[in-house]
């Protein structure tokens, strides 16, 4: 668990890059820091492994103030994927990936196996790539190496600074999936910096939205979509509200969107769905029954509301507000 307590960073030249920030990354969670360029994401991240010193405030990892930890020891247990990749050009891919395990004194057979496993994981055939030098790889391949290098020492915490920015959309999606799986399976605590809201929504357990060194909102992806804290967050989520529907739609039930039942309405021969039916399912029923209005019932079967076809379409498309 990583905790920021009123952390501020002012650089020597007076730039206040991070301003009184507090948040917690729970163990096994993936938290993304997101915000426009220059808002302090990288600075926030680098304070965790002490590459940047804190001006005031406190950061703790599992309750221990990092100010009291030895820099080198701390860093060997925190994987770090640097924004500029930073592979060592004079070392082979194998040596790059094995760097932290070697620093930690692993046996040769252990780290060699680790290198192979990790290369396999990111779809780079070990026998082809491990003896190559970084400059013999494409930008995207280098970025994958940057990612697995941070995993090699099996650190419980991983910091990733825009790790997938140089990848094509397909490999990017693929690595996002891998990362999510990895985090779920081996319970890594990950702090992930990104510019890309889609990426954040896809992989994050929690999203920290930053602006000018401060935090605008901390929320789960669906909370963020449904209840943006202010205009800034809203605009950062983007005009593309379809995104909203994709995530929020999954969790939304018929009773969340139903209208009040007019007391005069005769419901006995109308089609019904129960109140905790997902709205996608409601749409399916409507299409199958070829009806424009459907009745929502509660757990005892009593009618409690209705949904109309147009309204449902708007909900599914995520354009409710504009139409009203």
């Amino acid at each position, binding site marked *: 668990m990583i905790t920021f307590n009123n952390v501020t960073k002012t650089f020597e030249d007076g730039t206040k890059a991070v301003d009184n920030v507090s948040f917690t990354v729970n163990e096994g969670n993936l938290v993304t820091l997101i915000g426009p360029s220059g808002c302090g994401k990288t600075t926030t991240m680098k304070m965790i*492994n002490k*590459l940047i010193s804190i001006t005031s405030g406190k950061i703790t990892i599992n309750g221990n103030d990092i100010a009291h930890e030895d820099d080198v*020891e701390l860093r060997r*247990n925190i994987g770090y994927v640097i924004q500029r990749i*930073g592979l060592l*050009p004079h070392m082979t891919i194998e040596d790059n990936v094995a760097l932290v395990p070697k620093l930690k004194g692993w046996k040769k057979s252990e780290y060699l196996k680790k290198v192979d496993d990790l290369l396999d994981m990111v779809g780079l055939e070990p026998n082809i790539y491990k003896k190559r030098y970084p*400059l*013999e790889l494409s930008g995207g391949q280098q970025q994958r190496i940057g990612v697995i*290098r941070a995993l090699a020492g099996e650190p419980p915490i991983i910091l990733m600074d825009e790790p997938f920015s140089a990848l094509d959309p397909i490999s990017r999606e693929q690595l996002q999936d891998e990362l999510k799986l990895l985090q779920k399976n081996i319970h890594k605590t990950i702090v992930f910096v990104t510019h890309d809201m889609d990426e954040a929504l896809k992989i994050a357990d929690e999203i920290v939205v930053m602006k000018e060194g401060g935090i605008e909102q901390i929320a789960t992806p669906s909370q963020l979509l449904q209840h943006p804290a202010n205009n800034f967050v809203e605009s950062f989520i983007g005009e593309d509200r379809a995104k909203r529907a994709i995530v929020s739609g999954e969790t939304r039930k018929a009773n969340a969107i139903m209208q009040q039942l007019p007391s005069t309405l005769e419901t006995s021969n109308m089609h019904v769905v129960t109140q905790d039916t997902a709205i996608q399912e409601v749409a399916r029923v409507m299409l199958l029954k070829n009806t424009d209005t459907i009745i929502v019932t509660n757990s005892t079967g009593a009618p409690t509301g209705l949904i109309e076809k147009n309204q449902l379409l708007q909900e599914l498309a995520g354009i409710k507000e504009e139409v009203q």
Partner: protein
Amino acid sequence: MEAFQVFLDTILTRQDLILKSTLEHLYLSFLAILIAVGISLPLGIYISKKRKVAEFYIGITAVLQTIPSLALFGFLVPVLGIGAVTALVALIIYALLPILRNTYTGITGVDEGIIEAGEGMGMTKRQILWKIQLPLSLPFMMAGIRTATVLTVGVATLATFVGAGGLGDVIWRGLQSWNNSLVLAGAIPVALMALLFDYILKLVEKKVTPKGINL
């Protein structure tokens, strides 16, 4: 053709002098470079960590280098007297700048991102120096040493004026006696020596350039 015959005769008759002077020349140049490397490499590494004072040190060596070489030998005589030591000191002063500057630019030129990655992975300062900065700046250092060597071999011809011998002796005797063949018999070995060192050091430079950085 006749001039060439005279030249060959000169070499034959003066071969003892030429050989002795060549060895002296080699010895002076080699020792001067060795000591200059011994000073500038550590100093270059040191100042690369103190960028504020670096310009100062490099400035000093740059100023020293602007002193005309003959004048520098002249300045040193009243202080150190005549002899090999004076010649060595002058040569070392000349060789310092290229090595110091190249070491400094080599080390400070290593991409920040690479250093940061090293730090971030938990390498110590020493590990970063030995495993990242030095290997990556080695080609620069070698290039500096190469420049310094060629320079030193040339300037060492002036050692004769402080009584330190070298091929300058041969050239100077030739000039005094209007003997062009003798001048050449001194000058050509200097040129060959410079070319040879340059060539060898170029090979070394290639050899020490880490695989992977010039693909």
